Every structure is written in C-alpha cells, then in structure tokens.
C-alpha cells in the first residue's frame, strides 16, 4: 500500500477538505473594496456638495429603499418573474435546439455562424416591436429575454456537445455503446461547463432584458417603468433604490446559478481552487 499513499502525499482528502477553510480570507478583500467604494461615494457627494437629485449619497438611497420597501419588492419581483420565465425558456430552448442540431456536426456548422451573428444583434432593439406582437404586459418582456438568452445558450451548448475528445468517443465505441448512451454518459456531462457559462451570462442578460424592455412601455408595477417614471420626475433617490433592488435580484440570481453549478459539477476545474 505504500506505493499508493506516497503518490498523493500531502494532498487533502477531497474537494470538501479544501473548501470551508479560508472562506473569510477569500472574500475579505472584496468586502473591504465594497465598503471603501461606498465610503468614497459618500465622501464625494458631500465633499463636492453634489445635489441629491443628480447623485444621491448611499445612505439616502438606503433611506429611500426603506421608505418604499414594500412597493420596491413588489415591482422587483414582478420584473424578476419576467426575467426568470424568459431565462428558463431561452436556456431551455437553447439547450434543446443545440442537442438537436449537434446530432449532425455538419448541420451545427451550418447554423452556428447565423446563431453567432444573431447573438451580436442588439436584441433589445426589438423591444418596441415585441410590444406590438405580444402586448404591453409580461409577454413581450418574456419574449425579449427568451431571445436574449437563447443564442448564447445555443452557441455554448453546441460547442460543448461537439468539444468531446475523439478518444473519449472511441472509448464509447469500443464498448459498442449506442448513440443515446454516448449522449447521456459522455456528450452531455462533457458539455455541462459550456452550458453553465451560458447560464451564468444569461442571468445578467435576463435582468437587463426585462428592465430595459419595460422602459419601452409596461405596467405601472414593473421595475423598468418605476425607474423611468421616478427619473422623469427627478425623484432620483427612488429610482436609485429601484436600481439597488435590480442589482440585488440580478446578483442573487447569478449566485444561485453558481451554487447549482457547484452542486452539479463538483468535479469541475472552476470549483477546484480555493
């Protein structure tokens, strides 16, 4: 047994052992930077005597948030639901379309350039048209978010599914594995890192898509309309408070997806360090 233990001497037993410790150390610098930035912001506003309607100090924004918490959470969740629905549709359809088209690498090569071109189109520019097509309510916003998240997911997933090492495929071939088995046991897990990259980018895109779509028209109780109407009235502290909740929702969404990623891929390089 000696020969076995020497090979990895000094290495911790598993991924679990290396996480946990140093969690504070890992996030401390970021926390310090955050607090310093808030402090600088406060100092800037007071030091240069900036009018609050131009740029409210952080504590004013927090105050405005407290005063309007119920309304803000309401509009925030309303818009987040659009983002979430569009995200689920866009990611889901993106993965499905990628699975279908990667069955034939030649077909995937054919559609990929168009998908990349579509992904670089500012889809948000379609938001006014989406209102014409799907109405002023949540439907048009969900449609925009779906489009915005679809293309990155599709592109990444196709790349992931086609990125499988030839020898990994040969191994499956040597087992006389069927196409379905090769897909489930090799292609799909091998493409998970690519998919999660798109899923992570998609969280941000979906919040942007939903809020900006609402700028072009939406119900009173949506985040985008709330921000634009408050800004139009120079009630910037409320607008900022709404931006704050948009940030909080977007960030939480992102972190949840990162958490899911870690649970689904405990083996992946991105979770090895720390």
């Amino acid at each position, binding site marked *: 047994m000696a020969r076995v233990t020497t090979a990895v001497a000094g290495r911790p037993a598993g991924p679990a052992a290396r996480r946990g410790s140093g969690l504070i150390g890992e996030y401390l610098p970021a926390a310090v930077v955050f607090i310093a930035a808030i402090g600088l912001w406060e100092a800037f506003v007071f030091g240069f005597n900036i009018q609050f309607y131009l740029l409210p100090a952080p504590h004013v924004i927090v105050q405005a948030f407290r005063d309007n918490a119920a309304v803000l959470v309401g509009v925030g969740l309303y818009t987040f639901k659009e983002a979430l629905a569009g995200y689920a549709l866009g990611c889901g359809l993106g993965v499905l379309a990628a699975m279908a088209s990667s069955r034939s690498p030649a077909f995937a090569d054919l559609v990929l350039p168009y998908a990349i071109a579509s992904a670089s189109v500012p889809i948000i520019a379609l938001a006014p048209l989406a209102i014409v097509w799907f109405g002023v309510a949540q439907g048009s916003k969900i449609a925009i978010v779906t489009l915005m998240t679809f293309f990155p997911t599709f592109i990444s997933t196709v790349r992931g599914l086609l990125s499988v090492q030839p*020898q*990994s495929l040969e191994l*499956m071939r*040597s*087992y006389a594995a069927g196409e379905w088995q090769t897909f489930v*046991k090799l292609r799909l897990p091998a493409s998970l890192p690519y998919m999660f990259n798109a899923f992570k980018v998609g969280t941000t895109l979906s919040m942007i898509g939903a809020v900006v779509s609402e700028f072009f028209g939406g119900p009173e109780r949506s985040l985008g309309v709330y921000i634009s109407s408050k800004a139009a009235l120079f009630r910037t502290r409320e607008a900022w408070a709404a931006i704050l909740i948009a940030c909080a929702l977007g960030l939480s969404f992102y972190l949840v997806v990162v958490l899911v990623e870690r649970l689904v891929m405990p083996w992946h390089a991105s979770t090895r360090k720390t």
Partner: protein
Amino acid sequence: MNGPIIEVRDVGKVFGRGAGVTHALEGTSLAIEPGEFISIIGPSGCGKSTLLRIVGDLVEPSSGAVTIKGKSPHQARLDRDYGIVFQTPVLYEWRTVLRNVELPLEVMGRPRSEWHGRAETMLQLVGLQAFQQHYPWQLSGGMQQRVAIARALVFNPSILLMDEPFGALDELTRERLNLELLSIWSQTSATVLFITHSISEAVFLSSRVMVMSPRPGRIERTVTIDLPRPRTAHTRATPRFFDLVTKVREGLREDPAVAAGRDVVEEGA
C-alpha cells in the same frame, strides 16, 4: 475454439488520396494465440497504432482481413471481446475513480448490483481501492493510467488492446507499471496486444515481440521472448534480457529493404 484468437492477414491501410496519400500499413500479417502477450514495436509513425485500431474496429483496413475469435472485428467489438487502454488515460473527469471503472458495466447493461463489487475488485487489483471516491484530476498520471487498466478489464474481456499505455509516463513509473501489468495479466486469462516504442518494455512484458518497419508499416521480424515467468525487477538485470533487447534493437535498425528479403511472417499467414 482452437487456433489464433487474433489473426491479421495481409492488412494494408492507406490514408488520404492523390499526392497526400500515406501507406500506413502494407501486407501486415500476424497471428496471436489465446493467452499470449504480444508487443508490437516500431519507430513513431510506423503504423503500429493503426494496426491496433484496425483490430479494435476503430479504423477500417484498406485491404486484407482481420478475424478475432473467428469473427470480424466489427462483430468482436459488438460482442465486447476487447478492452482498450490508450496512451492517455481518457478518464471521464465528471466521474469519480470508482464510477469511471463502472462505466463499461453501465454501458453494457450489466446488472446494477454487480457494478460496485466488480469495480472495487479491479481497483484493488491495481492498488487504488483507497482512491475510489477521488476525481481523476486528484490522481497522478501513473495512477490515472492504472484506473484506465482497471476500467479496460472490469468486464472481463478476453482481449486487452494497449496503445502505448505507458508512453507518457516517466521511466520509473513505467517500470513499476510494467510489473503491475504482468501481475494483473497473470490473474486474468486475457490475450494482450501491446503497442510500444520502448524496447526494454516490450522484452520485459511479452511472450513475443513483433518489430515493425515504417512506411509502409509491416512486421519485419518476430522475437520470441523465452524469459521465465513470473518476471520480476531482477529479470531486467539478467544476461538473457540483454540478449533479447539487443536482438530486438537489431531488428529495428535493419535496413527495411534487406529485412524484406527474409521477411519473418507469422504462421497462419
């Protein structure tokens, strides 16, 4: 079934066409008896890996015929007659060591109840039972290749195809794995077809060493290795070992044109 378990008759392989054509193999014949440990040695690019891949039905030959247990390589692959080990471990990084070894059993639809036990036994055989729950990246290169060997043998194939399995490892690790491979092999009844470019490795492991010439690849001579078994680290220090290494080396150095004049082709060709 009597007779050779693997028979290669007059196999040729041509890659590309027109000006870019490469004759990887030409007129290659060999016969391997059940339970033999055969090494094919030759310089890089002599087509030895191509030969192994033809036997494994991963590549189609351009000419000639291969029979495995009296069947076509295609049928042999469908019958899961062989396990294969590549130069790189080709472990699936999302699976733990244990689950990597279980993979063939899963794919082949063996009863779920036997996966764990069989995989565990194989890991014990390669000395990695303590690393079952590790992921491949947590293992050294030599350990990863041991997992690949365990995976190749877990479903009890009658043939083990090894394509320069230790080529990427350092000399010390390679020699240790050579010893381990022999001890594993002695516990199975598998016939081994082993590709290598290391003379001492080929001599140490094999019952016969086949020397290939490059472009077009063909088997120039066969050296029967009569070193007694079990072979140990000491075997490498015996005069007979040196004699055989020299013999193989001479075979490799020979002018292909001269060697072709007295072609050593296997029985059954």
